[in-house]
């Protein structure tokens, strides 16, 4: 038995047999051709280059790809159209009578060797680009685009060096029980997708491939971030029980799929999803979410070398809006700190980015970036189900400024004769204590409010929850936080608008009764948690929840 640490992407547990999928090695026979075959062989080479270039173009056009990835793909294109490369291969075919596969594989082997001999690690890693291109080209010629995931089943724990987002979707269809990678990070796109699918997954398990053999028994424990290779009987027994429990709960949850979320005494709670990347939409629909309560748009700006254009943003927002219609899609404008945007904006180093230029402050500082996003959102609202939400609002004046900018955007679109929907719901995130305290004024100017509990707790209690030394101070149910939530809900209801909670509190079972008792109208949670939270809502009695809230307030107030 061997235990290895990793970083867990989602919380589930899986037991299965290790299925190792390595980077595929193609076996190329070093063939020679006859004189009369030269012409067809050169044509074959040219045709396969054209085909693979088209393939790469399609990938580049897929705007859900990150900028880093499209940069890599652009480099791959350059490798394929490299004049030295094409002329060398043609020479090898015509002068040395090599088959195209022979010439191409020999050429790339040489290049990879040059890279491997380099002293500079960073530069020498670039050999992977050449390996990828060689694989693309040769696998096409050899017609070897076989299904690499062919032998997987529900007992498989897939072991890989790293995995791409599209591969996660593919293997999920195979119903595998878990996934474990040597590289990768929790916030990679592939991880986000695995999380929204509730697929047990660990990443960054250093030394994984050296220690796992094909068909080894494997346990992935997402709760303790461990991989157990060849567990002993006792451990296996312990985990088998846990799995049984997990399965029972899963089956129970499936039953609520078609129910509307409401309390046992009939109060409807609108239950929506938070998404980080467009690919999560499939899980949103599959789990019958009532729309998207928080569509984060940061993925568009992270790691980017240039701002996404209005057209690019419009296409992405429109697709999501159409898929969700008639249910709402709440698009949150850019919510990044200056530290994350240093590629794009000239923001000096901030000593304290959490209290610096971030969220709506960035948007109001860099109005042209803000306007591009607003226009794309206005244009995407053709089915009348899109709403716009501003992060990091600290007082009503920021909402008023943002609304003025929206009006300017509408006028500019009108002048340009671009069609858009002038009616759009506007909301503010309540995540700074000052916003909760002045929520009366903010509610007056908004069509809805949404409470971001992560930041609200962090700013109210002055605690960074990622800082382990002080993480005990991070208490979402602290009296101060509950009072701010209550105040926000009361003020919103005073102005006849709805309040949602889209922070992590809404995704945790233990806080649901509390939030309902406080009077919340809507919850927005990660897609993988929808059914669990719905089940909790169904088991909540509004009257009792309100009573619970009274008791908690009394107890906490007595304590102080």
């Amino acid at each position: 038995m061997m235990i290895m640490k990793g970083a867990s992407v989602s919380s589930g547990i899986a037991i299965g047999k290790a299925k190792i999928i390595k980077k595929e090695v193609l076996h190329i026979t070093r063939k020679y051709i006859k004189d009369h075959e030269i012409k067809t062989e050169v044509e074959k080479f040219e045709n396969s280059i054209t085909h693979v270039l088209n393939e790469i173009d399609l990938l580049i056009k897929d705007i859900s790809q990150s900028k880093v990835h499209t940069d890599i793909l652009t480099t791959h294109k350059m490798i394929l159209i490299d004049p030295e490369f094409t002329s060398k291969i043609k020479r090898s075919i015509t002068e040395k009578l090599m088959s195209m596969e022979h010439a191409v594989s020999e050429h790339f082997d040489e290049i990879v060797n040059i890279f491997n001999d380099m002293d500079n690690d960073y530069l020498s890693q670039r050999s992977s680009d050449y390996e990828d291109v060689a694989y693309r080209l040769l696998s096409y010629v050899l017609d070897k685009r076989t299904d690499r995931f062919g032998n997987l089943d529900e007992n498989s724990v897939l072991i890989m060096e790293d995995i791409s987002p599209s591969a996660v979707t593919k293997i999920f269809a195979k119903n595998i029980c878990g996934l474990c990678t040597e590289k990768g990070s929790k916030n990679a796109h592939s991880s986000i997708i695995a999380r929204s699918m509730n697929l047990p997954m660990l990443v960054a398990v250093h030394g994984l491939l050296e220690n796992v053999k094909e068909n080894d028994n494997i346990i992935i424990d997402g709760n303790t971030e461990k991989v157990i290779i060849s567990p002993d009987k006792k451990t296996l027994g312990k985990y088998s029980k846990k799995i049984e429990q997990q399965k029972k709960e899963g089956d129970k949850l499936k039953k609520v799929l078609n129910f509307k979320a409401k309390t046992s005494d009939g109060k409807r709670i609108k239950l929506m999803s938070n998404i980080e990347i467009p690919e999560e939409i499939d899980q949103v629909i599959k789990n019958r979410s009532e729309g998207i309560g928080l569509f984060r748009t940061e993925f568009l700006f992270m790691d980017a070398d240039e701002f996404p254009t209005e057209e690019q943003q419009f296409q992405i927002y429109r697709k999501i809006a159409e898929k969700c219609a008639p249910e709402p899609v709440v698009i949150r404008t850019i919510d990044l700190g200056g530290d994350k945007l240093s590629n794009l904006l000239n923001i000096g180093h901030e000593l304290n980015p959490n209290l610096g230029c971030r969220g709506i402050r960035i948007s109001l500082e860099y109005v042209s970036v803000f306007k591009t996003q607003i226009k794309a959102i206005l244009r995407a609202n053709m089915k009348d189900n899109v709403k716009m939400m501003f992060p990091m609002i600290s007082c009503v004046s920021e909402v008023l400024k943002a609304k003025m900018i929206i009006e300017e955007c509408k006028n500019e679109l009108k002048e340009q004769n671009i069609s858009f929907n002038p009616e759009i719901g506007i909301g503010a995130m309540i995540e700074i204590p000052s916003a909760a305290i002045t929520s009366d004024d903010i509610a007056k100017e908004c069509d809805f409010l949404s409470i971001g509990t992560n930041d609200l707790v962090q700013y109210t209690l002055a605690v960074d929850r990622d800082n382990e030394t002080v993480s005990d101070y991070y208490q979402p149910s602290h009296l101060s936080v509950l009072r701010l939530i209550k105040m926000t809900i009361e003020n919103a209801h005073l102005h006849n608008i709805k309040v949602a909670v889209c922070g992590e509190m809404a995704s945790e079972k233990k806080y649901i009764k509390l939030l309902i008792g406080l009077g919340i109208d809507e919850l927005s949670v990660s897609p993988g948690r929808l059914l669990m939270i719905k089940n909790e809502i169904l088991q909540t009695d509004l009257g009792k929840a309100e009573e619970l809230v009274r008791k908690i307030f009394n107890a906490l107030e007595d304590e102080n």
Partner: protein
Amino acid sequence: MIKKTIEIVNKLGMHARPATMIVKAATKYRSDFRIRKEDMEINGKSIMGVMTLAAEFGSELDLIADGPDEEYLIKEIVELFASKFGED
């Protein structure tokens, strides 16, 4: 023919992205473009050539352009190096 000597000033050196930018820029011109590092000389319009130079931070390179629009080519490439390819 024009020759210009420059030094690599971006910290990561000539990795894939800068190499792509150089080749893309150079390919727009009709002139021949070669890059020399110590005793190695490569075609500056070939990404394979540019990447296998293994030019690190601080390396010195000779940029050699020859043809009808050689001045413009050299000017654009020198600017690219000076801009550190948008890094750092």
